């Protein structure tokens, strides 16, 4: 009987912890994706992208553009000032956690390789401009260089 009680206690504790976690993370995510823009290489045919689709791309659940071309994620590294806020808004993770997340996807053949990383928004934009099929999330209001903006829809 004691065993069952312990199992029930652990299960209840997990559920409570999960609920607390959801509340805390909802607060952290409340900032949302409003402060960011999605930029893509000029080879990407799309002109707009839904917020859900962009999140699924960042989570590596969608790895190809319509037409079959590989999506290359370009991400702000953990050294970049906005790296954590982008990863938080689109993946509910920190940039360091996102890196580990992507690595597990590489070694399950979900992604062909790690994303390209940039230590600043400017570096990210340069990589998107020169990498066919690439896409990135950057803070709003930055010079997008030779990349193009994908209008985010809800």
């Amino acid at each position, binding site marked *: 009987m004691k065993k069952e009680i312990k199992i029930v206690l652990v299960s209840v504790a997990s559920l409570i912890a999960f609920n607390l976690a959801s509340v805390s*993370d909802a607060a952290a995510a409340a900032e949302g994706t409003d402060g960011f823009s999605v930029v893509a290489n000029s080879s990407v045919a799309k002109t707009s992208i839904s917020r859900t689709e962009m999140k699924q791309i960042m989570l590596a659940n969608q790895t190809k553009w319509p037409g079959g071309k590989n999506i290359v994620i370009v991400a702000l590294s953990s050294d970049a000032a906005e790296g954590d806020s982008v990863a938080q808004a689109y993946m509910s993770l920190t940039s360091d956690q996102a890196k580990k997340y992507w690595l597990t996807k590489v070694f399950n053949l979900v992604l062909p390789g790690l994303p390209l990383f940039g230590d600043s928004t400017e570096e990210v934009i340069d990589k998107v401009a020169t990498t066919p099929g690439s896409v990135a999330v950057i803070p709003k209001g930055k010079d997008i260089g030779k990349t193009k903006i994908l209008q985010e829809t809800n």
Partner: protein
Amino acid sequence: MILRTRTLIYFVFSIAILSLNVGRLSHAEVNRFPLKVFSDVGYLYDNPSSTDSFRVGGLNLFLSSTIDKKTSFLVELVFQPKVQSVDVDLERTYAQYVIGTWLKVSAGLLHTAFGFWNDTYHHGRYLYTPANRPYMERMEFEGGILPIHTAGVELRGNGLVGHSNLLYALDIGNGRGPVKNPPSMMRSYSRTKAFNLLLAAEFENGLRLGGNAYRSDMPGGYQPASDGTALAGGLAIGPKGTEYIGGLHLVYNSSLFEILNEYARVLHTYSDGNPATHINLLYSQFGVHLASFTPYFRFDWGTLDRPDAYLKAYTGSLNQSLDGHLQYYTLGTRYELSSWSALKAEGTASSDPGAWAGTLNWSFAW
């Protein structure tokens, strides 16, 4: 230290593949080249069974390559230090053909798509938070109960439904052999192939729910010959029956919390007169990410209603360690030392009075 000939062959083969591929890549691409080496070193105190010791972890080579737009392959080799030698384990090797996001066909030696942990993590300790795998996720060679590996074919896919990602994986493979370890890589001992079906839903907030069902024959058989084959000529020792495993998992990963819960129920039925057995396995892990620190707690639990003919015949330690009822309580913390390395300190107490172990581990990747 004895390095076996095949160790050297594997090593040279891996380096040769790496060299060939790196030579074809631009500087920018080299940074993305999916070769990673994982390793770890540690210090272990195990009371009361042994003295405290420094310990060298395995050297894990992950190598994946995209052959063309639809075809990729992956190799995972583990160089595992033993007392007087280094063993080489081919942990995973498979090719994958992508028909679409909804269907990817893989063939080779894979990790069985059980629940979350075994479908996500492999041998690189750096990738998972604690120093040690949960009891129910132990490898076959570590005395683990579940069939962690499958040699065969896997169909896998995912699709977006609303704001969630639904995924499935169907493994069809050789299944259990007359011995639990190593997995049956070279032949099937039964006309009926083993299968495992995983279904899961992932949500944008980091929640994942899923379940799986597995079935394999336990074919009976013969004690392996010295060359590792388990064919006629040896001593018949294997019980004959069927293994069924059902599993559930509930996982939540976010920037603040890591909550992992997995449960598996194993049923062994025998057609040779041995009594059926039921095994329950569960772990529940809770971690909090606080800047560079992640303190965590894990509860491992297992029950076995009677000595199991299949597991007892081949892993005498299972029934001793599980002993009908097993509980581990693990408390530890992880510290992100640098971009690709982490320090971990954890202590594990078992339900046996006075039995506990402490682990310090430095795991890294490059």
